[in-house]
């Protein structure tokens, strides 16, 4: 009689405990936290925990949750699958052909994770139990303002000085760098001029004769005008209005109008 009562009492206690766990499932911070809580029912040192037993408990818990149609988050189910796998590894004799870590290794790692998490929780509790600033010990209440005296020093090097001087003394040697438009004949100008002249040239003519009046004598102007005229000629050749030839290097460049076939 007594035995039956005893058994029933245990069964009730277990059921209450299991239901409490399930109802509290939102209170757990993930499967590892749940495993840690379950492991406490073993009432042994975490280092001596039976992972097989723990896997069993966890799977039973998940089963119950399913029976009660509680929705468990995916990571709880992932853990359940993994623990089922671990359980089989632990129960079956090791298969030498099988690759990967042994059940014992996996179990040892899980035990390590649980022990480490518990250790961090204990440490957190000890940390928060320490004397704290503003609660147990206090800083000076009447802070004296520290006046900040800012002192600015200026520096310059001898090089700065000399460069500064050099800059001043040589200013007159330079003038702002702008293109000297007076002696530049642009390609646009040359192109315009060539288009006008081209109609009159049936025969091969030296390109020099196309230079604008007054640009052939001044060397600077001649250089600019020659370059522009040559560039304009090439453009016109490309357009199909002109033919160009040069018998040899440095020989005169000759132009003539392209005759339509």
């Amino acid at each position, binding site marked *: 009689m007594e035995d039956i009562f005893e058994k029933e009492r245990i069964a009730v206690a277990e059921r209450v405990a299991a239901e409490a766990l399930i109802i509290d499932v939102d209170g757990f911070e993930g*499967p590892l936290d749940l495993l840690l809580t379950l492991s406490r029912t073993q009432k042994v040192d975490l280092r001596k925990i039976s992972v097989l037993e723990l896997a069993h408990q966890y799977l039973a818990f998940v089963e119950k949750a399913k029976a009660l149609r509680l929705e468990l988050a995916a990571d709880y189910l992932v853990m359940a699958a993994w623990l089922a796998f671990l359980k089989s590894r632990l129960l079956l004799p090791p298969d030498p052909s099988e690759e990967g870590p042994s059940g014992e290794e*996996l179990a040892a*790692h899980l035990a390590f994770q649980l022990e480490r998490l518990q*250790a961090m929780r204990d440490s957190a509790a000890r*940390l928060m139990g*320490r004397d*704290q*600033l503003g609660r147990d010990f206090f800083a*000076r209440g009447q802070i004296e303002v520290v006046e900040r005296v800012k002192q600015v020093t200026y520096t310059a090097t001898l090089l700065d000085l000399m460069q500064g001087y050099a800059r001043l003394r040589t200013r007159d040697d330079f003038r702002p760098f702008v293109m000297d438009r007076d002696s530049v004949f642009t390609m646009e100008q040359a192109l315009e001029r060539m288009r006008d002249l081209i109609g009159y040239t049936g025969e091969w003519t030296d390109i020099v004769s196309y230079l604008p009046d007054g640009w052939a004598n001044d060397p600077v102007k001649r250089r600019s005008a020659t370059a522009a005229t040559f560039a304009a000629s090439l453009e016109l050749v490309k357009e199909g209005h002109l033919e160009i030839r040069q018998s040899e290097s440095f020989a005169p460049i000759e132009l003539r109008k392209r005759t339509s076939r």
Partner: protein
Amino acid sequence: MTEDYDLKEESLFEAPPMGEQERMIEAILFASAEPVTVRELEARMPHGCDAAEAIVHLRKRYEGRGVNLSKVGDAWTMRTSPDLGYLMQKETVETRKLSRAAIETLAIIAYHQPVTRAEIEEIRGVSVSRGTVDQLLEMEWIRFGRRKMTPGRPVTFVVTQNFLGHFGLETARDLPGLKELRSAGLLENRPPPGTVPGPGDMDDEDDTNEGQSELFED
């Protein structure tokens, strides 16, 4: 040459007597709510002062008093004696209640620093919410450390001087139970069995060791 000159110059300055130097440090530390480094003390004291030595004397003087000198990182500060906390209800500042997740995250960072978010998650078995980290950053109890030399170069977290000051710790080495945890192997970042050590994992280990040796090993 310049060194010779400096030496001579220094000896020309008569440093104030040690008792006077003590007074100066007493005044400076008293006036400041924040810890003050030896370097800053000396910068504010007259030339030739030896703040470190004066602190030794001053600390002794305040031993057993209602106010004590304590070291936070490489700085010094004055704090009321913890056994008199009960007199200070008026001064007690209501600190924000930290969530369990925040407290655990803080402890993990303190004991495992420098530690990445992934490592924190590995230890806690759940993902770390942004809010938790933000809260700890905001309280200036944690800050970003240097990046890990692992793929992705993740940022790490370390605890700050504020953290040390709040919990009355001189260095992170003084965390309660640190030695026991380390000798029990519980501060190791043990990869799960079967994971292939990828490239950079070695670096990771080196890095971790380095970080911890810097912090925790003498």
